[in-house]
């Protein structure tokens, strides 16, 4: 376990160093534009699977959290000219509160009822933002990027690196949860809530914790998006596509291990980026659907499940 731990942190450091190096040597803006989106989806998918994967509560409200993250940043920037770090920190705090409220209201419901409640949440919040003039209302709002901080020479490069930091943070949290008593408790309540409760697992409290952490990370991932697009409007910030893509990424990657959503987000995110550039942005929705169907049929436990199955078969072959 300890050796795994140091491998993980070495990997994370190498990843961040590579990201930083990229910003110093690549002049072309496009790779950063594209990779930012993929990194953002990694954070969202990892955050989603803390509640959706470990606890088995399927959240369709990713776009609600994402959108609230965007608009927290918009509000803070417009009202106080807050710096990016403050925008992200505030978004995480708002997301945690929102996760707590959502959890308190809905986590007593099980299965599909929880999922429906999360969709309702998205609609309620989107409608509220649409009617809030100060942040632009339905027409949206233009954002002027401030001067970029050293050592970056371009704002998108900086956002790219910030999102890479969020990836490491999200993955580290998810990995910690998986390997700790929290993960064991969530797995138990996913298997059987009553049996878990009768074995001493405080199910409601653990679900709330998962919902709070998941919500905070999703909102944090959304916060830099306003500066990335230099524009925010409710229908794109709360676009249901975020919910569906993130769910698909987590399921395709596999939810049993923290690496699942990372793999899924890289796989699907890259495919989507390539398709958007080469064919059209509409086709990527179609491809998403087809891939989801293929995986549900052929590899219901995702890429991670597939790898485990192959490994197990190989071991049995040896024995």
């Amino acid at each position, binding site marked *: 376990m300890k050796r795994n731990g140091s491998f993980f942190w070495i990997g994370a450091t190498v990843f961040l160093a590579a990201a930083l190096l990229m910003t110093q040597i690549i002049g072309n803006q496009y790779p950063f534009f594209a990779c930012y989106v993929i990194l953002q989806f990694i954070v969202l998918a990892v955050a989603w699977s803390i509640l959706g994967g470990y606890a088995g509560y399927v959240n369709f409200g990713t776009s609600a959290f994402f959108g609230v993250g965007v608009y927290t940043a918009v509000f803070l920037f417009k009202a106080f000219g807050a710096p990016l770090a403050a925008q992200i920190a505030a978004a995480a705090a708002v997301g945690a509160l929102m996760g707590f409220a959502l959890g308190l209201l809905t986590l007593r419901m099980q299965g599909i009822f929880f999922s429906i409640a999360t969709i309702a949440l998205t609609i309620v919040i989107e409608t509220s933002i649409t009617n809030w003039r100060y942040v632009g209302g339905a027409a949206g709002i233009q954002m002027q990027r401030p001067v970029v901080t050293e050592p970056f020479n371009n704002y998108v490069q900086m956002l790219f690196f910030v999102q890479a930091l969020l990836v490491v943070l999200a993955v580290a949290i998810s990995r910690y949860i998986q390997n700790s008593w929290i993960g064991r408790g969530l797995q*138990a309540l996913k298997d059987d809530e009553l*049996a878990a409760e009768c074995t001493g697992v405080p199910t409601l409290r653990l679900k709330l914790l998962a919902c709070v952490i998941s919500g905070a990370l999703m909102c944090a991932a959304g916060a830099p998006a306003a500066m990335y697009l230099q524009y925010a409007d409710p229908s794109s910030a709360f676009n249901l596509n975020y919910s569906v893509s993130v769910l698909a990424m987590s399921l395709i990657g596999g939810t049993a291990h923290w690496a699942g959503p990372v793999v899924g987000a890289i796989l699907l995110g890259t495919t989507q980026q390539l398709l958007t550039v080469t064919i059209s942005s509409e086709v990527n929705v179609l491809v998403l659907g087809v891939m989801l169907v293929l995986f549900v049929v052929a590899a219901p436990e995702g890429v991670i499940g597939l790898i485990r199955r192959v490994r197990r078969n190989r071991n049995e072959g040896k024995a």
Partner: protein
Amino acid sequence: MMPPEPQVPLLRISALTKRFGGFIALDNVSVDIRPGERFGLIGPNGSGKTTLINCISGAFRTEAGTVVFRDEDITQLQPHMRTRRGIARSFQIPRPFKSMTVAENLMVALDFAAVTDELVSAAQRRDTMMSILTRMGLASKADVSATKLSQVELRKMELARAMATRPNLLISDEAMAGLSSSEVDEVLDLLMSLASQDITIIMIEHIMQAVMRFSDRVMCLDAGRIIAIGTPSEVMANQRVQEAYLGT
């Protein structure tokens, strides 16, 4: 551990009533369970046995009455709080954590229920877990997925998981249903050995020989009411029990 005063009941159920809509599943049930007792609970299907233990373990909220455990009113507590106070149970239809191995099933209990003041290392917990599994005859199955167990192994694993929560009171809900007669003896011996270690046991069972052999006292429920309570032979001889349960 000092045994409590013999007069003080370990569990006191007073005037417990549970309704499902218009159906009265438990009607004003009162009973004391003494520390160290082996208590048999019998009754025909639908008489309220499982409802009663659901009310004791906290899975159901009751309409009226109180449950007092070790001098503390636990009527309003959630199930996990009751487990931590020392009430463990098995389920009539086994409910293992299916995505886990047998060892991991027990680790859930050790992580969450068996909370002690002293810090326990991972190795110590693994020892505790293995010693429980060994006692239950499941040591060789530690790393097997819970889905791969036979019926009798599942029953034993449920008891092992319950034991890992360090209970004072263990409620066994038909742990022998559907087992062969040699397996019944095996599980019964296990329960007997647990009872000899200061664990109070409530056993729900349909297999009469097992109930007769096991229990210090037997209670018979019918339609949510206590119709007889006493030594096994007294209860068996009771006219109403024979009518309700054995059929005449």
